[in-house]
């Protein structure tokens, strides 16, 4: 296993992927680092990659004049950047590093056709993606409940 493959395999996103899947994704991956406050993605810009956070913390934000609304923070282990998978392939919100952050960036533009060409691989990647979407949807429902005022 290469270092990239090891990093990828250790990330929760890869929990149900095979070694071959990990090797395939690693071909499309590189390590990226972000400094505190760096805007990583901006709403409406093309979504070309997604991130598997290795360390640090990022904010999911929405620009809502006169300010910015922080919707959620994400730590190591999170998957960021689902917009890479779905039309119109542009970011739906801003992503900003809160702390120094390291992530594996996976090239979504090159990954998309591979998912179609190898449906088994595609299904496993989509399942992994759906698991993170499901988890985040549940959390955002709880978030909306204003739990602690009850």
């Amino acid at each position: 296993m290469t270092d990239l493959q090891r990093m990828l395999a250790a990330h929760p996103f890869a929990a149900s992927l095979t070694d071959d899947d990990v090797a395939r994704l690693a071909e499309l991956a590189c390590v990226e680092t972000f400094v505190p406050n760096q805007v990583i993605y901006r709403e409406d810009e093309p979504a070309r990659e997604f991130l598997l956070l290795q360390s640090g913390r990022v904010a999911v934000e929405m620009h809502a004049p006169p300010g910015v609304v922080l919707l959620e923070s994400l730590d190591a282990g999170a998957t960021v950047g689902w917009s890479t998978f779905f039309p119109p392939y542009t970011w739906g919100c801003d992503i900003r590093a809160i702390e120094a952050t390291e992530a594996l960036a996976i090239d979504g533009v090159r990954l998309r056709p591979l998912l179609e060409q190898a449906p088994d691989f595609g299904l496993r990647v989509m399942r992994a993606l759906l698991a993170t979407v499901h988890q985040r949807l549940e959390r955002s429902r709880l978030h909306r409940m204003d739990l602690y005022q009850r």
Partner: protein
Amino acid sequence: MTHDPFIPTPHRIVEKRQETLDTVTLVVEPETPFVFAPGQFNMLYALGRGEVPISISGDPGEPSRLVHTLRAVGLVTDALAALEVGASLVVRGPFGSSWPVEEAKGHDVLIVAGGIGLAPLRSTILHILRHREDYGRLAILYGARTDHDLCFADDLHEWGGRFDVEVRVTVDRGSPAWRGRQGVVTAVIDKTDFDPARTVAMVCGPEVMMRHTARALRAAGMKDEQVYLTLERNMKCGIGQCGHCQLGGELICRDGPVYPYPRVAPLMRIREL
């Protein structure tokens, strides 16, 4: 000597801390040691308004100081929160079941609290820290509405600074100055280092939060039997006599408020209760 739980006893307030805008901690020093188990509660009386159950948030190993932390949400708690140092706090107790600190010996302990729910767990945390060698890893996960609603901020800083405690705090909505986590408390469970096979979880907060925490713990590999939580219902007598706090077959003041999750999970699913 233990206090007679049937007799309301006035104690002078010696210290008052404003935890948040609507939450205060009141400290009294009983003339005789006030012995209690972590998780137990007292009935606190506000003159002309009534009595409410409030958990003991102090250190069970320091029975000369009796500590309560309460959020002002209505008639009685508003009056209690307005009491100042020197005023009299009328206390009856202690009542109810306690957190499983004996059963948890030799295990990792995961504390999950939401909002004012950290108050009844604070006594447990202080107990575990006092007997640190009896327990494995200790993780404290705490969620609040905003960073201004975090109770026990000094304690959280102190515990977070220790090498033998993992503290994870998250808020629903951070102020612009907040650089910590933002999101629900269930989201930090899978970021926490614990061995699901040898962990006891103690959970306190609003019921929805506790149900979803139990669900997240199950997803992390824990069994429901390893999870304990507290139930809240209105109370009058506090001693299992009036039936006011009945939930199904349980009298929460006597059989609870701390329960193993499987015992109360079916009750928590019934919509009408």
